[in-house]
């Protein structure tokens, strides 16, 4: 049940009921969220009315879709994971374009850094929490981190608190990254670089890579994991 998005499957009564239940669960979570720490998660619109209900529904629909993608991704569905990353990258890009007007050259770099963070930290997502809140917290953290490193006044900007801001439209058109990830990838320790190139770029299986490189299969997995962590660290240090 949790593997499927709700919206496309209204054909049976059972699915409809499950959807309603899940929706209430998610809504309840948001509620608890809001009552204790207002700046962590706020629904996009609070005043009642027809227009706001539409916004709220669009927001809920996106939350359900992205959460379903994340749950499938965590179960090992790489296609769902790819779709999630594409969607998130677009929202994150729009969010940063709006927020980094003073540092336009940094936007695509920060989008990439955020995607790496989402990937390396994806085991911290708890299925009981809204995926949008999780993703927004990472995007905001990376933004504040960059502003702080640049010594920008906006780093202390407390208006960065509305999760809906990240999810109000996505920008598919990527800008140019200033920093070259490929050269950072090339600079990784050899075993980490090899594991990543074979599995993640050339698309070989872990077993094939193990046979090609003489590493054990678990060493290949560990080196991919460590390599992407090192890459994220170097990306942050290079900016």
């Amino acid at each position: 049940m949790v593997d499927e998005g709700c919206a496309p499957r209204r054909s049976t009564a059972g699915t409809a009921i499950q959807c309603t239940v899940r929706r209430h669960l998610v809504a309840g979570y948001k509620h608890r969220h809001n009552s204790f720490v207002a700046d962590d998660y706020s629904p996009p619109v609070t005043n009642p009315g027809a227009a706001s209900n539409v916004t709220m529904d669009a927001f809920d629909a996106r939350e359900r879709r992205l959460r379903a993608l994340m749950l499938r991704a965590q179960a090992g569905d790489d296609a769902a994971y790819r779709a999630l990353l594409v969607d998130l990258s677009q929202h994150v890009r729009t969010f940063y374009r709006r927020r980094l007007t003073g540092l336009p050259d940094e936007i695509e770099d920060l989008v990439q850094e955020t995607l790496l963070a989402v990937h390396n930290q994806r085991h911290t997502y708890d299925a009981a929490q809204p995926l949008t809140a999780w993703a927004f917290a990472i995007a905001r953290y990376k933004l504040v981190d960059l502003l702080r490193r640049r010594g920008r006044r906006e780093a202390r900007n407390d208006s960065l608190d509305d999760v809906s801001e990240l999810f109000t439209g996505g920008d598919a058109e990527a800008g140019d990254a200033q920093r070259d990830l490929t050269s950072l990838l090339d600079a990784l320790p050899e075993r980490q670089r090899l594991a990543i190139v074979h599995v993640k770029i050339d698309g070989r299986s872990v077993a094939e890579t193990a046979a090609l490189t003489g590493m054990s299969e678990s060493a290949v997995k560990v080196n991919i994991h460590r390599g992407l962590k090192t890459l994220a660290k170097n990306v942050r240090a290079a900016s």
Partner: protein
Amino acid sequence: MKTDALIDLLATGAGPVPRYATSRRLLAAATIGTAGALLLLWIVFGINPALQADAARVPFWLKLAFAMALAGAGLLLCNRLARPGVPVGAAIWAALLPLLAMWLLGAMALIEADSAARAQLLFGASWRVCPFNITLLSLPAFAASVWAMRGLAPTDTRRAGAVAGFGAGSLGAVVYCLHCTEYAAPFIGIWYVIGILIPSVAGFVLGPRLLRW
């Protein structure tokens, strides 16, 4: 590298995510921290020679339950603050309730005691060293929880550092129960709590430097 290429790279062969990875990492840190504290206790302080007799009485278990409840609260709070977008919320009561209960017990004991006995309830024989002993015993858990947090994703590094220190301090207090011979609620409510607060404040101060990712 284009962002699309990065997404391809990340998604290709990504595979499943281990279940309960966050909780398991924190539990591993708590286990390592407890083992380290037991070793330190054995080397530095030794075990209370009267432990067997003391453990037959209620106050020993009350003190141990207090420290364990705080350690559990620390773990719970770490498990929330290690994840992006999860607020502390009502979980803060897991830490506050044992504290309030101990302070209530302490206040009752002080009110009932005559003035001559109050100093003994408050200061016992070891108030000067108790907080620092607990802080010392919290060091292994402090290091372990910083290690655990660094592999997770705390977005509020100050508060994440503080709860990591709080959990470590509480584990130190749990282990210190095997050495300490103080059982008065006012003593525990003050000096044990200070011993737990020292690593909490250290975590709060060091968090932004140690937990950045």
